């Protein structure tokens, strides 16, 4: 029974890859006084049940669906100093067994806001540009913890990421190492700390100078380890995950759009949890 309940109430953190990236698409604006905004939609859904890294039967139909709409903004004081804000609207649902009865638990509303100050050091080379970055981040508990499946955890959390990025006309690379210290929240939620590595490798096959338009394709790899924590129902969260997927980016003048799919290559969870499954992400951003 405990196992069945544990299975049905399995929880993964609702926020994830989005914490590592900065608007707008990690690239712009790099000019002093520039600003930008982007809207991004993340979606993932899975009914794959894992115990450790073994897939398990799922007779209770445990399922997890998370849809998050991110509104993100950035202001560039100088190319070395920026400020960003990321505000999520979360709509999520999970299957659960409460007191032996299978239920659908839902949470919907404004999630926890993420503030960051990306600091970067640039090098302009002949035919390329490169930068290293250090980004302190703060997660503000603006999300409600009242829903059946709470969209926030009620705690202030702190993050730090270090990145290296280089770009030539044809190639783009980004390596971002990030860490989050998650403090205990309300309703017994105590998410584990998170460390991760995000790698983007991009190729730029087409560009039109006259219209400032083009596309590039990327491979996105994300690895993350989240220490053991507990959710609002007292069950374990956290584990190790590796996701890989293609990214397609298109731009036209000051507008950029990005679409990506990330597939779970490896997952090992604490106790029993629902897999993250395939993550889909589409967004559009504009700079001024």
């Amino acid at each position, binding site marked *: 029974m405990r196992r069945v309940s544990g299975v049905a109430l399995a929880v993964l953190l609702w926020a994830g890859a989005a914490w590592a990236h900065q608007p707008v698409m990690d690239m712009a604006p790099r000019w002093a006084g520039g600003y930008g905004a982007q809207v991004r939609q993340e979606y993932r859904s899975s009914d794959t049940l894992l115990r450790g890294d073994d897939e398990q039967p799922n007779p209770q139909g445990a399922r997890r669906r998370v849809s998050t709409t991110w509104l993100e903004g950035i202001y560039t004081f100088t190319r070395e100093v920026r400020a960003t804000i990321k505000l999520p609207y979360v709509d999520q649902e999970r299957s659960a067994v409460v007191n032996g009865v299978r239920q659908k638990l839902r949470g919907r509303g404004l999630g926890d806001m993420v503030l960051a100050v990306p600091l970067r050091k640039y090098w302009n080379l002949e035919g390329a540009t490169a930068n290293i970055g250090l980004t302190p981040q703060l997660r503000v508990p603006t999300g409600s913890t009242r829903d059946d499946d709470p969209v926030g955890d009620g705690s202030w959390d702190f993050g730090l990421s270090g990145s290296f990025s280089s770009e*030539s006309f044809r190639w783009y690379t980004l390596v971002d190492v990030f860490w989050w210290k998650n403090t205990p929240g309300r309703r017994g939620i105590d998410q584990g700390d998170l460390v991760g590595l995000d790698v983007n490798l991009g190729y730029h096959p087409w560009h039109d100078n006259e219209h400032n338009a083009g596309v590039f394709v990327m491979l996105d790899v994300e690895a993350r380890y989240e220490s053991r924590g507990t959710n609002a129902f007292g069950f374990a969260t956290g584990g190790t995950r590796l996701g890989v997927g293609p990214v397609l980016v298109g731009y036209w003048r000051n507008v950029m759009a990005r679409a990506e799919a990330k597939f779970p290559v*490896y997952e090992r969870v604490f106790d029993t949890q629902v897999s993250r499954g395939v993550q889909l992400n589409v967004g559009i951003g504009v*700079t001024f």
Partner: protein
Amino acid sequence: MHRSILLGLLVALATSPALAEADPMPGHDPGHRHAAEAAAPTTSTPDLADRTLAIDVRGMVCSFCAHGLEKGLSKLDGLDTDRHGDGVLVDIEAHRVTLALATTDPIPFADITRRIEKAGYDATRFHLRVQGAVDDGPEGPLLRGSHPAQAFLLDAPVAEADAAAGVQLQVDVANLAGLPEDAPIPAAVHATR
């Protein structure tokens, strides 16, 4: 297994293709060397149309990122906005910005350089055509274009007959840092017409 994958990725990125593709960075020259030495070309020299200024911009490889550069340069006075939409053409493959000029006013090199730096890049070399008479200055031949306030200190002599009659030269200009506003601008002669 996944550790091996990550290790492989890190090694691959350590030899980042973006940086491998980059040319070696030329040495920075804070002084006023002779124009020919200072402006030794590292990129191709454009075949310029009339009233056109081409600028080599170091690090400009991403059109989306360079939007601020185009925005900043398009606010310059004296651009011919009938060309390139706003008078500014960004070529990220050649790492070059082309300005379409509408007037024969002195070219505001310092202002252009500042705007490019504010956009996050470095202007390394200007290419332009200058038409005018050449006379001998204390440091070498001076080419005065349509605006007498702006003179170019040439790195090569011009035939006496041509100098008196007036010539049209395509010149490269680099290393303007610290140059007084009214000083002759060191210029490497690229082509004579």
